[in-house]
């Protein structure tokens, strides 16, 4: 299956994920690179927002794509590639950070915030949100970010986190409650 742009002058013939996946499974490194280029930026955004800093972004991405390359043949639905990559990245991220007693979720992020908001009151509110998010456990924060920030549906979050739908709902609700309490107390 090939997607063809309507304008002949654009002239690019872009294979879809299904074609590239089949080629990559057959050993075509070039096809795998195309898949990587298509999804790396999106995945970098997700990982960055989940990790809250840039320090290990490249490492997590590398591990996630290496895992994906090794088990690409197990992917049943090519249309679900992006969600599948997110699931792998979430697993990798949790494996890295779960054992750590403390890491600053907003490390690096706060350094970059000042220029993006001119209204000091709005800035203060968002800063409080960062502070609160930093206190929420990873297991609660991940579903909340995937759902609220990334806009994933609840079933997608459940799939990405490898937990049941009921658990996702419970964790997101728990995170919401903690955020509200934190913002109220601030």
């Amino acid at each position, binding site marked *: 299956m090939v997607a063809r742009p309507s304008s002949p002058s654009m002239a690019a013939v872009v294979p879809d994920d299904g074609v590239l996946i089949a080629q990559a499974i057959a050993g075509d490194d070039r096809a795998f*690179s195309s898949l990587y280029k298509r999804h790396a930026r999106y995945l970098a955004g997700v990982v960055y927002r989940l990790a809250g800093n840039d320090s290990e972004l490249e490492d997590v991405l590398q591990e996630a794509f290496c895992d994906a390359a*090794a088990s690409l043949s197990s992917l049943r639905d090519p249309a679900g590639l992006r969600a599948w990559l997110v699931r792998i990245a979430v697993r990798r991220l949790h494996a890295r950070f779960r054992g750590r007693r403390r890491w600053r979720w907003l490390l690096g992020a706060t350094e970059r915030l000042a220029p993006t908001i001119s209204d000091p009151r709005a800035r203060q509110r968002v800063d409080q949100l960062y502070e609160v998010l930093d206190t929420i456990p990873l297991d609660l924060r991940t579903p909340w970010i995937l759902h609220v920030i990334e806009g994933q549906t609840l079933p997608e979050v459940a799939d990405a986190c490898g937990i049941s739908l009921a658990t996702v709902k419970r964790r997101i609700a728990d995170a919401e409650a903690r955020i509200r309490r934190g913002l109220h107390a601030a």
Partner: protein
Amino acid sequence: MLPDDIAQLRKDLEPPWNDLREQRVLGRIQEARRAGRRRRAMRLAAAASSVVVAVAACMALLLARGGSRGGSGHLVATSSVPRQDGGQRIALADGSQALLVRDAQIRVSEQTPERVHIAQGTGEVRYDVRPDPAREFVVTAPGVMVRVRGTIFAVAVTADRVEVRVERGRVEVDDGTRMRELAAGESLGIPSRGARVGDEARPEAPAEAPTPAAAVAPPAGRPTFERMLAEADQARAEGRQDDAARALTSALAAFPRDARVPGALFSLGKVERARQRFEASAMAFDRCWRSAPNGPLAQDALAEGAGSWARAGRSDAAKADAARYLERWPDGIESVRMQALSVR
């Protein structure tokens, strides 16, 4: 919590991601996958029977014979002969020679049938390069890159200056800001940027034959490839294309055998294009795909190179690259654009 807060959070948390980082991670992924394949291959090899060992020995013997003819793509031999005047003559396996005046220092960091790279740190060296259109011969001195196909030229490095003199043929001299071509009888003096580049080009040892397993790890205190790429990354992000080009050129000169060289060359091609130096851009892309013809960037580099050659007004070179592309990837992503370039 207001939707505005969420929107702001989403906006704040855009990752500092760009092409260079994307390529860097891709290079690491490919390297990790290659390492995995090597490990699997080693496990298989360990389990093989004595019959397989005997066959492998035969194949190794055949390969060794092939290598001695210089056609295998691996490193070839270099010999060093002292001269009566106290200098030294380095004879490369392709027939080229480097005549070192006393105290001159060079390091042959790459020597394959496709490419020879010599890093010259100090002193004067006269290079007699045997003509070979299929082989690129590059000499890097502090802040300067000299590229030839077949000619005789000399490079003299002093504390504050690099001088290139051409005796026969033509050479291209690139100082990171612009590229110039010198013909026989011409010379060019360039202020040395030793503080930035000289350290990288400084040889780690007096001239000697390279070994296939030559280490690329820098001595303590020298900038790492990673740091130089990060500098280029930062410069690009801030729109300082000249600084980005300089950092990338320095990184490539200092670590010509690093596994990330193709990625750096690809970035250099893009940076040079942003600087409107289309010919330099095309050459960087060409070096990129030649350095890893089966690598993940080869297809894109060939297509980008063809585009840059076209913008440089070199339709012959653009057609050649486009033809190469279509030959290898007739149904590739850029095949239609390459077909258009190939008939211009």
